């Protein structure tokens, strides 16, 4: 295994199975993290995300299956492979001692000379926004500071695979937002292969290039982040990521990269070039859907989809409302600000116009293919 290049290693795992007692906590046929990319592993608590991270990171041995780094089979006893990886967890788990002691821990294990260690520690602390913090006690840091130290402790090793297990979930929203930006920037600059475990879809979208959603130890969706978030495969996944189940439809026309798709009653327009007659699943993220009053004059825009429907559900989710609109039998969700809900006097039964772009519609061929 070479260390000449800094770019991350491709990680692949096949047939991974891990049991605790009689309970199967991970059962994954295959998972891929392309070199230099970030895979967001999303799922609710207890879905097996951290266990899968421990297996992929060679921290725990699976009961079955094989992990590969750049197509080379590796295991927990492969010290050379393990030294290519580093992790940071939800709880920073800083060791007793100073910030410098913590950041230098992995370097000491690698027997780096003291002068080189000092230089590497100083440089990495500067990178995570903690320049000059070497001599501070690690046990007196705030949550955000401790998490930066934990990231520095991993980054200083220049790992080719970085494992982050819910690193931001115990932080308050302000620090979380700032750290998320910093983490994303650093990971992209370092071009490391990264596995980012989270239960927060916003973090997953911000950090990931690709995404796997795990439920009860099994992947229920995987692919590019936009595709997975825009077109969840089933109702449970849709509910988990705050979306609606995909619409079952049929392509009725396809011209110049634009398709007409009949979804029950209404016809929606989507970017793509599937043949007419093809059965498809279509979905649109709630954030991409705008609502207007039923009789409002809609301003000119590039949005090709302008449908009329009735609000059937109004749910307050944090600072935003999640509304579901029935459009001729098709359920389309929208995220609307509190101010807009007040201004438009939106409630169950309100008639609204639903507007979204054709490019916002995610389309996937239905497994059953043509229906005639």
């Amino acid at each position, binding site marked *: 295994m070479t260390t000449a290049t800094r770019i991350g290693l491709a990680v692949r795992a096949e047939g991974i199975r891990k049991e605790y007692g009689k309970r199967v906590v991970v059962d994954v046929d295959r998972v891929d993290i392309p070199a230099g990319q970030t895979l967001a592993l999303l799922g609710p608590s207890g879905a097996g995300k951290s266990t899968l991270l421990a297996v992929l990171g060679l921290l725990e041995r699976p009961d079955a299956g094989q992990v590969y780094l750049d197509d080379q089979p590796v295991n927990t006893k492969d010290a050379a492979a393990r030294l290519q990886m580093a992790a940071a967890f939800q709880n920073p788990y800083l060791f007793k001692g100073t910030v410098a002691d913590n950041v230098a*821990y992995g370097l000491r294990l690698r027997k780096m000379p003291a002068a080189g260690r000092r230089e590497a520690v100083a440089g990495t602390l500067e990178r995570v926004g903690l320049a000059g913090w070497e001599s501070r006690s690690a046990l007196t840091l705030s949550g955000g500071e401790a998490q930066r130290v934990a990231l520095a402790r*991993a980054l200083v090793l220049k790992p080719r695979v970085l494992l982050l297990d819910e690193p931001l979930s115990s932080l308050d929203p302000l620090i979380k937002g700032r750290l998320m930006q910093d983490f994303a920037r650093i990971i992209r600059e370092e071009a490391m292969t990264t596995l980012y475990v989270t239960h927060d879809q916003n973090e997953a979208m911000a950090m990931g290039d690709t995404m796997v959603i795990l439920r009860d130890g099994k992947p229920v969706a995987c692919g590019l982040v936009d595709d997975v978030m825009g077109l969840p495969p089933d109702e449970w996944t849709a509910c988990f990521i705050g979306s609606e189940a995909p619409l079952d439809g049929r392509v009725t026309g396809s011209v110049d990269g634009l398709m007409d798709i009949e979804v029950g009653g209404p016809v929606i327009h989507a970017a793509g070039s599937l043949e007419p007659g093809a059965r498809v699943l279509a979905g649109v993220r709630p954030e991409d859907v705008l609502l207007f009053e039923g009789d409002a004059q809609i301003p000119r825009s590039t949005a090709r989809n302008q449908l009329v429907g009735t609000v059937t559900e109004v749910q307050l989710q944090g600072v935003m409302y999640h509304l579901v609109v029935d459009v001729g039998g098709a359920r389309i969700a929208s995220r609307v600000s509190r101010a807009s809900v007040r201004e438009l006097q939106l409630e169950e039964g309100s008639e609204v116009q639903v507007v979204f772009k054709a490019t916002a519609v995610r389309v996937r061929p239905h497994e059953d293919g043509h229906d005639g």
Partner: protein
Amino acid sequence: MPVLVEALVTAISMLFRGSTELWNVIFVTFEVAIISTIAGVVLGAPLGFVMGATRFRGRRTLIALTNTGMAVPPVVIGLVVMMLLSRQGPLGFLGLLYSVDAMAIAQTIISTPVIAGLTAAAVASVPYKLRLQARSLGASPIQEALLAMKEARLGVVAAVAAGFGAVVRGVGAVMMVGGNIEGKTRVLTTAIVQESRRGEFGTALAFGLILMTITFGLNGLITWYQHSHERLGRS
């Protein structure tokens, strides 16, 4: 009450006067306590680490046995060791009965489960994910174990102190295998028993005060160590 005052006066004067016998008793007490504590650490600390940090078949049984070992009356341990070392016993050929070595063996059997049990509890309190964190940064199993011991060091120090305390305050075992021979195997606790039986309460109390001073000094040292590390942690 006058008896108590008289005893106290005798004790203080004896302490200030000092005597060869007194210093000999103190020396033997320390000799036995230090040897059996070190042996208890050598045997008990690794056992405690294994019980606290790893999962294996029979672990619960081992923990239960260790906890039982912590509660076995010293006099029972003394009896067993005496039977083993007696002329008719399987180890009688060693000729160790009524010697400092015999006392150290019995006291080691007392200190080992105390040190092992408390070390196991201290190491078990180190979060598994902290060890996983060390592993993820490249730590080998031994480096991971050392880190866990380092993180649990205040608890491990307390375990060693408890082992020393169990040894230094024990009377039953050392009485049985040491024989309380003046100038040879007499220690502070057996001396207290001896002097009390003779009605020399002042002398017995003097030995008691010395024992308490040793215990207090040791606990003071441990408390200072723990507080200084807490301060270091916060500074």
